[in-house]
């Protein structure tokens, strides 16, 4: 019995080593691809004439859809940021999703809203829109009030029904857009008309200086938790999504900042209101639509147009957010199981989906089990403490190395955090991320997986917002 257990433990340890090696190899490939993609993008910067795109009457117009539920503290600044975008033809459609706070009042006061009849342009099932308003101070603003649908997807779908332009950009109400983000996004659709969806980078605004609805100086806050998330975001966007974009297998276009061809999204029925990861679900369905039709298409990611968001600064909110993400991922993998491993779906079916299943969905489970089994092995004397420490050390070293890789890409391409103090905090966070935070996050994901398998209900949870003050976004401790 003991012998069998010993053999099992040793076999599992060997499996964990092989698994870790495979994950490291994947990350390394993604870093290399991301580096190449971003280098190419940066080199071509001077070839791009964003001014003409921003001012041309013939540029493709964009509808910006902003779902808002109880966003009174940030909505005015967020809409201001969007309306200040340097672009000729766009509208902002704010969908007040049955807010119980003063979201609508704030908008009415700040933008002189008056009732206005707007005819829907598309048929999508959503909770009823009860009123629509136009702004007297800026005709590009449309506000819809609808019955609460209990999810973001329903609100975006409602906005999509009323949006009138061929491209639609979905942004969260707690985000600030860079002033020149729109021309950068639209250019990709103009230069490569096969583009169906495109994601931009979401950066964390906590601690940064905000003026007139735009981040004027990127800074990092003092809170370690937020800095850890900044490093995580950099790694996810600059390394992960850019790498996947290079492979033509982007699976997630962030719901907080993604631009789509409206008619394609309407054709597949818009966002799925029952999904926890409606953004990833939508992208996977778009891949399926285009692949099934054999039509040339591109779903990509570009790292230049920036959208700033407020990150949770308390563990409780962060935990709820990350649980939702993990459950969303599992759900997307389940709904797209028919695409997995099928050559017809190209790199999406053959590489991206299997990767997400093997390393993103199951990864936390293997990691947590690894910690448990190795500790057990040491306790039972089957493994020397030195080997266990070395094993843990290598895992941590590689984790840190990949975070450093993301910082390296950031330094190479954008260098948004100009101050040495901010840079120092990021380096420190990249180092500390793997000592405690990573393990906590793995546990959260395992719990979320468990809850998902037992179909326990998941609330959306409420984000505690500090709001975008003119000087900076304070980070709550």
């Amino acid at each position, binding site marked *: 019995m003991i012998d069998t257990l010993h053999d099992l433990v040793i076999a599992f340890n060997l499996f964990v080593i092989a698994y870790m090696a495979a994950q490291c190899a994947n990350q390394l490939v993604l870093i290399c691809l991301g580096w190449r993609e971003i280098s190419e993008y940066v080199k071509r910067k001077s*070839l791009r004439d964003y001014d003409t795109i921003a001012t041309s009457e013939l540029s493709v117009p964009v509808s910006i859809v902003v779902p808002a539920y109880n966003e009174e503290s940030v909505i005015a600044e967020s809409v201001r940021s969007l309306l200040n975008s340097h672009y000729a033809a766009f509208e902002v459609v704010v969908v007040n999703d049955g807010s119980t706070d003063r979201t609508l009042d704030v908008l009415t006061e700040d933008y002189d809203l008056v*009732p206005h009849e707007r005819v829907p342009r598309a048929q999508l099932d959503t909770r009823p829109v009860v009123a629509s308003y136009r702004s007297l101070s800026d*005709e590009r603003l449309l506000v819809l009030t609808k019955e609460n649908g209990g999810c973001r997807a329903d609100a975006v779908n409602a906005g999509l029904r009323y949006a009138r332009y061929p491209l639609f950009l979905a942004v969260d109400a707690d985000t600030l857009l860079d002033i020149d983000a729109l021309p950068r996004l639209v250019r990709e659709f103009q230069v490569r*008309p096969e583009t169906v969806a495109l994601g931009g980078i979401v950066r964390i605004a906590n601690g940064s200086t905000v003026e007139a609805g735009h981040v004027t100086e990127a800074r990092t806050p003092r809170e370690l938790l937020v800095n850890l998330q900044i490093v995580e975001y950099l790694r996810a966007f600059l390394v992960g999504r850019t790498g996947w974009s290079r492979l033509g297998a982007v699976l997630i276009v962030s719901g907080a900042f993604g631009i789509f061809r409206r008619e394609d999204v309407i054709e597949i029925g818009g966002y799925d209101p029952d999904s926890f990861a409606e953004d990833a679900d939508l992208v996977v369905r778009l891949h399926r639509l285009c692949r099934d039709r054999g039509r040339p298409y591109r779903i990509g990611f570009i790292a230049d147009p920036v959208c700033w968001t407020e990150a949770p600064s308390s563990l409780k909110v962060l935990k709820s957010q990350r649980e939702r993400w993990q459950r969303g991922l599992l759900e997307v993998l389940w709904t797209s199981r028919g695409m997995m491993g099928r050559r017809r779906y190209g790199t999406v079916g053959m590489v991206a989906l299997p990767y997400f299943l093997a390393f993103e969905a199951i990864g936390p489970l293997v990691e947590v089990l690894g910690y448990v089994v190795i500790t057990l092995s040491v306790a039972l004397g089957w493994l020397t403490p030195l080997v266990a420490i070395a094993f843990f050390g290598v895992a941590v070293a590689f984790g840190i190395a990949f975070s*450093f890789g993301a910082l390296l890409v950031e330094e190479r391409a954008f260098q948004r955090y100009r101050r040495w103090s901010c840079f120092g905090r990021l380096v420190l966070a990249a180092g500390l991320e793997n000592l405690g935070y990573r393990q906590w996050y793995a546990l959260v994901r395992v719990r979320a997986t468990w809850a998902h398998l037992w179909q326990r209900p998941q609330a959306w949870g409420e984000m505690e917002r500090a709001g975008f003050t003119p000087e900076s976004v304070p980070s709550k401790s």
Partner: protein
Amino acid sequence: MAADTCRIIAFFSLGLLAALTLLVLGKRVIRGLAERNSSRRRASWTEALGNGPVPDMRMGQLRALARQAARRPAAQEDLLSLLESGALPPRGTRREPFEAALRRAGLVRALPAACRSRTAVTRGRAVLLWARLGLKGAERGIEPLIADPDPDVRAAATQALAICHSEEAAWILLGALRDGHMAPERVVERLSGQWAALPLLRALRQVSYARVRPWLAEALGLTGDPRAEPLLITMLEHGGQEHRIRACRALGRLSRPTSFTALSVALGDPSASVRAQAARALADLGDARSVGPLVSLLDDEAWWVRARAADALRALGEPGLTALAHCATEHPDLFARERAAEALGLEPEGTRNADGADRAAIA
């Protein structure tokens, strides 16, 4: 044995971390240095050119900078950004010695070679530099790149030709439009200057451009050249639906009072899209005579035409608003009343309540 292996692993891990830390820090420092060099180089260009007469120009320094630009991508980027900002090239008598310095440094010779480079970025940068420097023969050098396999290079070539501001460049762009090398919108937005008007007018009459005539009309509207008006009116009266839509848009942009009759007639077009565009164009004309025809469009069968008519009446100012105020209460058609009321609702409080005398006048 195990202890040795662990030690090796630990050393390897620490070494990896140290190397990466150094790499990240090094990258930051190198980037800082590169930025400093770049700003120094840009300052050198302006310093070498000076502000005074030709003898004050530092020709040696200019040649050295041009030599750098001929060889190094970073120097080319700096020169390009100076050219984009308008700091270069110098004008008047100072231009000749400036060009001579570029020639002697080999930059002029390097540009055609760069256009044939295997690297897309080099080709794209070369066409932009060539055009921005305003050197003779740039159009012919750029022309082959309009059909480049790389979309960024094609876009750069289109932009470069628009920078040339010459008829020759306009004809090359028209060729790209006809042959479908670029999306029509991307070519048309570049043909918006007065320099493109004559080639556009000529192309409109040529059979080989028949397929892209609606786009030529669109471009003519952007040039604002009044000579286009009769041709556009003919297109509006006799063209297909796409032609009529583009002609309406172009006539709206030209904003010539003489287009009023043709546009009023277009309000009765069988195509709803043409009617909507005609309403918009009449708003651009700003002619008070449009009020009557636009009011008659408020009960159009297509809702978006009704919306465009209401928007157009609003855009006409006082006479349009007075008509809207009247229609909001008196129009026999429910939809027309709703549209008018809605359009009025978007006006500030004072303007919305049109005065009784005006209403009576309209009634």
